[in-house]
């Protein structure tokens, strides 16, 4: 039997509607899971606690003593005084840390055991914002 050699002519465009459905589902998934919000924070320049900087030993290193209800700022034992958060910021910014050599940027933070993280955080970020290096006092 002779087969007809005539080709079937017609539109051979594939149906792509389901593809765009999948694509739209993926878009919805990514929109829901994406977080484009940039978090707020402060990069901390912290020396490793295992090796405290030599400057910590010097008597004129600025020191912040933090207890549950007090902030005591000192620069050597004689100049010890209680300060508020704003006074501490003023004191730190007055030191112009970015213009100082690296060894003079350290601020020792002595924290009592019952101090909350929020209190420590405010002091540490204030030091970092002023260009200082937070040196943690270890026992």
């Amino acid at each position: 039997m002779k087969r007809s050699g005539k080709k079937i002519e017609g539109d051979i465009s594939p149906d792509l509607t389901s593809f765009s459905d999948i694509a739209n589902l993926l878009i919805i998934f990514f929109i829901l899971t994406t977080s484009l919000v940039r978090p707020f924070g402060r990069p901390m320049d912290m020396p490793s606690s295992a090796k405290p900087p030599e400057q910590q030993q010097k008597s004129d290193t600025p020191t912040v003593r933090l207890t549950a209800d007090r902030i005591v700022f000192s620069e050597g034992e004689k100049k010890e005084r209680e300060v508020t958060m704003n006074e501490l910021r003023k004191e730190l910014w007055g030191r112009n840390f970015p213009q100082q050599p690296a060894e003079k940027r350290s601020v020792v933070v002595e924290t009592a055991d019952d101090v909350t993280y929020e209190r420590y955080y405010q002091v540490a970020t204030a030091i970092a914002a002023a260009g200082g290096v937070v040196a943690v006092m270890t026992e």
Partner: protein
Amino acid sequence: MAIRRRKKPSLVLPLSSMGDIAFLLIIFFMLASNFMKTNKVELEKPASPDLEQQEPPKSSVVMDKDGRIWYEGAQVQPREVTEALKTLAEKNRDLAVHVAIDKALKRRDFMPLIEAISESGAKLILTGEKEN
């Protein structure tokens, strides 16, 4: 005389370009996405006025209100955080680790974590809420 009926124009919308746009949007979201691995962790971030907006985190460590440490979605010990970050910091010297700690935790709870991260050699970014 027979009146010829007017042919109705066929209404075909070309939808193939819609698919292209959809795929471009997918590629954008895939590149811009940052999957949240710490969604289930309960913590209240501390507030401070001395904060700036940071880049989205590449690596993050969280300490919840019960003092548990979460790294990349899994609960870990401070020593494990040091080890993991040390390996990452060796590959990428500019590695910045976002650290979020519950504001009510006491020094004895949060300080071992801060020390563990600073020992790893990674750059530490303490995250919180911006106070105006």
